[in-house]
């Protein structure tokens, strides 16, 4: 057995001509290598962004100003948001797409392998620029990840230019990554893999990639206008020149709302892969899942101003954006219903991917429902810019997007490494995360409804008790991720029980037909899908 694997491995190596050591990773065009880079990069950024959240929670542990300067607090909220959105969640999904899409559709690699390398390697440089700007004289960006004008123009410090160009690079990376995914899916499917036979993770990524290509350039336009407003005397966002700061918000959120679906649609795809496997049933309502994803994506282009109800716009606008936003809960509800219906009378087993998926379904739905509350214009006047909003989007992004990424990691890790992960550590990771994340974010609903504003380093005394518990939850959640780090390191060292090719008893799809661990090159001749 050992000799056989050794031989196979040797043979494999002989075939690939991959450089060894660091050069392998710098020059690689292999989708699995690039994906592993993406995933590790995302995880490191998750820890870095998390560390910044710890600073925020430490400052908010007690009322009053004690640990950091208010301006540094602002830099922390800003860079935490930017890192988590562009450095952690998006690269993690791109990484998962890189690993799994070619395996799921029976393609030999991504369609454009060299560009794939480029779109990854520009990312660490972009974040190096962003992070180093924190150490500049005058500090880093401090205007919130939404960089509203005039905070980012008239009142910002000189790190803004570096911020703008690093966002340009992040955008270029996302666009290239998305073009690669979309072309891979449309052009590289194995014979017989018709569109309506594609696994849902592939479908959701196809639609996500479309959203990315459509809105990342708009973000590039927005940062460009901020740059010229600040340094070249234009007045896009300055009323004195005929522009309007509100216009910034329109342009930004035209990008920003589809962006939140960019961060959740792949999550829907992951959950739609995992729930059927561990329920040992076919996914309920496959076609309706596809149509629901597509309608969410289309609707996402006409709801952006729900972030701006209190900014002010004509009454017709307020009504239109309220109703359009609430419409989105219909296709989202279809999805939640389908997941539950898939589990209904299934032979469910509770392995770790399923545990995270179940947590996702419950907790994401909480985030979805608070989103529905925020969509109602008149009550949003009360909720706007309070911790209720923070609670809402963290339920959607942490217990939504991040939990789905963890579910995906547990689901596919054995396929990547050929070994089962450490299930004891996984249990610890799950339960610690689950309890702490709710301690962290659930009380934010209460303090938010009671009027505690977000992005402020101090608060009124009546919020002290809740904030203490929120901070304790925050530290606990942060520490829980170190358990995950330990588990990942063990997994990458290939410790653990060997797994079969199928790995999970109920798993179906092409990715479970290749050996575990998946060889360096897969599907060089396309499989035939019946």
């Amino acid at each position: 057995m050992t000799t056989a694997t050794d031989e196979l491995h040797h043979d494999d190596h002989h075939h690939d001509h991959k450089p060894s050591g660091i050069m392998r990773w710098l020059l690689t065009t292999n989708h699995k290598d690039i994906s592993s880079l993406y995933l590790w990069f995302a995880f490191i950024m998750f820890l870095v962004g998390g560390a910044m959240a710890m600073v925020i929670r430490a400052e908010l542990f007690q009322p009053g100003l004690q640990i950091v300067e208010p301006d540094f607090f602002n830099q922390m909220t800003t860079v935490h948001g930017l890192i988590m959105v562009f450095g952690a969640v998006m690269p993690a999904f791109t990484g998962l797409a890189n690993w799994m899409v070619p395996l799921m559709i029976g393609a030999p690699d991504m369609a454009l392998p060299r560009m794939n390398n480029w779109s990854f390697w520009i990312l660490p440089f972009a974040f190096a620029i962003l992070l180093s700007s924190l150490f500049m004289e005058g500090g880093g960006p401090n205007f919130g990840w939404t960089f509203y004008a005039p905070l980012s123009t008239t009142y910002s410090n000189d790190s803004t230019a570096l911020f703008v160009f690093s966002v340009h690079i992040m955008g270029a990376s996302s666009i290239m990554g998305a073009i690669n995914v979309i072309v891979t899916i449309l052009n590289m499917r194995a014979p017989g893999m018709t569109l309506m036979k594609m696994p849902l993770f592939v479908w959701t990524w196809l639609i996500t990639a479309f959203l990315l290509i459509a809105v990342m350039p708009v973000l590039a336009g927005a940062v460009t206008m901020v740059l010229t407003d600040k340094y070249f005397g234009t007045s896009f966002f300055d009323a004195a020149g005929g522009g309007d700061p509100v216009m910034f918000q329109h342009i930004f959120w035209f990008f920003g709302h589809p962006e939140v679906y960019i961060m959740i649609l792949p999550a829907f795809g992951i959950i739609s892969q995992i729930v059927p496997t561990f329920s040992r049933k076919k996914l309920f309502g496959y076609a309706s899942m596809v149509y629901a994803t597509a309608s969410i994506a289309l609707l996402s282009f006409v709801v952006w101003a729900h972030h701006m109800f209190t900014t002010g716009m004509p009454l017709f606008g307020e009504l239109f954006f309220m109703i359009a936003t609430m419409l989105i809960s219909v296709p989202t509800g279809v999805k939640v219903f389908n997941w539950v219906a898939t589990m209904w009378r299934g032979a469910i087993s509770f392995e770790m991917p399923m545990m995270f998926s179940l947590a996702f379904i419950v907790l994401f739905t909480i985030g979805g429902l608070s989103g529905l509350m925020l969509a109602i214009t008149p009550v949003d006047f009360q909720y706007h810019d309070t911790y209720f909003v923070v609670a809402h989007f963290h339920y959607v992004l942490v217990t939504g997007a991040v939990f789905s990424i963890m579910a995906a990691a547990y689901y596919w890790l054995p396929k990547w490494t050929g070994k089962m992960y450490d299930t004891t550590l996984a249990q610890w990771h799950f339960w610690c995360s689950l309890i702490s994340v709710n301690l962290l974010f659930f009380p934010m609903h209460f303090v938010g409804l009671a009027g505690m504003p977000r992005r402020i380093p101090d608060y009124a005394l009546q919020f002290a008790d809740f904030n203490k518990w929120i901070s304790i939850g925050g530290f606990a959640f942060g520490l829980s991720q170190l358990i995950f780090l330990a588990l990942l390191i063990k997994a990458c060292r290939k410790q653990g029980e060997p797994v079969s090719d199928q790995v999970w008893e109920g798993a179906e799809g092409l990715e479970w037909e290749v050996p575990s661990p998946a060889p360096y090159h897969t599907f060089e001749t396309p499989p035939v899908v019946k």
Partner: protein
Amino acid sequence: MSEQQYEKYYVPASSPWPIVGAVALFFMAVGAGNWVVEIKNGSDGFGLHTLAFGALILTVMLVGWFKDQIHESMTGMHGDQLGRSYRQGMAWFIFSEVMFFCAFFGALFYARVFSVPWLAGASNNAETFNVLWPTFEAMWPLTTTPGGTTTEAMGWMGLPLYNTIILLISSFTCHFAHVALEKGDRAKLKAWLGFTIVLGLIFLFLQVEEYIHAYQEMGLRLDSGIYGNTFFMLTGFHGFHVTLGTFMLIVMFFRVLKGHFSHDNQFAFQATSWYWHFVDVVWVCLFFVVYVF
């Protein structure tokens, strides 16, 4: 359909160019980020030098990457499926460029339809008007801003109209070049392609003339309020794209002289011509929205 033949998809082993390109972008971003600050605060040259250094690396990378690419293409390593990948990739790239322009067209639309009339009290903004700039008058082009900056509006007759005609004709000549390529008529291909390049260069020349005229005689500048902002940002980014497109056409011309491209092997040519048509369509929208109306 039966007995379909699968040619192996060409997955390049490994390549130094992407990482070189990543380093290039790093230097360019750091350089540009420092340079714009130095413009404002007085320059010590660090930003500009870093930017230029990055641009140099990027040039090396582009030359190297495309050289590899052309070599592989000419030695027949690219199959039909890869060709489709390239074409689809190019189409999506152009779509992303369209969306980039949409951001600026959107800004122009918003300023004209909302922010300028609102500053003059339209809709329910009477108080805004009374409190901020009670003498402000809404107009488009906005030749007097609320803050008092004045400028002149660029008419559409003359240079802009000539440029529109030039670019429209160049779209046709580019298409004729492609038709000639398909027919294998190399002489006509060279002629039409050369003609397209000349038209592109004339367009750029006239555009520069227009800018000089605007800055020196009309007082229309990038910082002349929202009209000048949208005027220069839209025509400027468009001009940048025309420059890029012309450069691509020139590369294609030299490749044609070397005997490259045929009915079966013409991705680069096709991509360039798509890009050229895209630049043309953007100009037509721009001509009507920025100049005429």
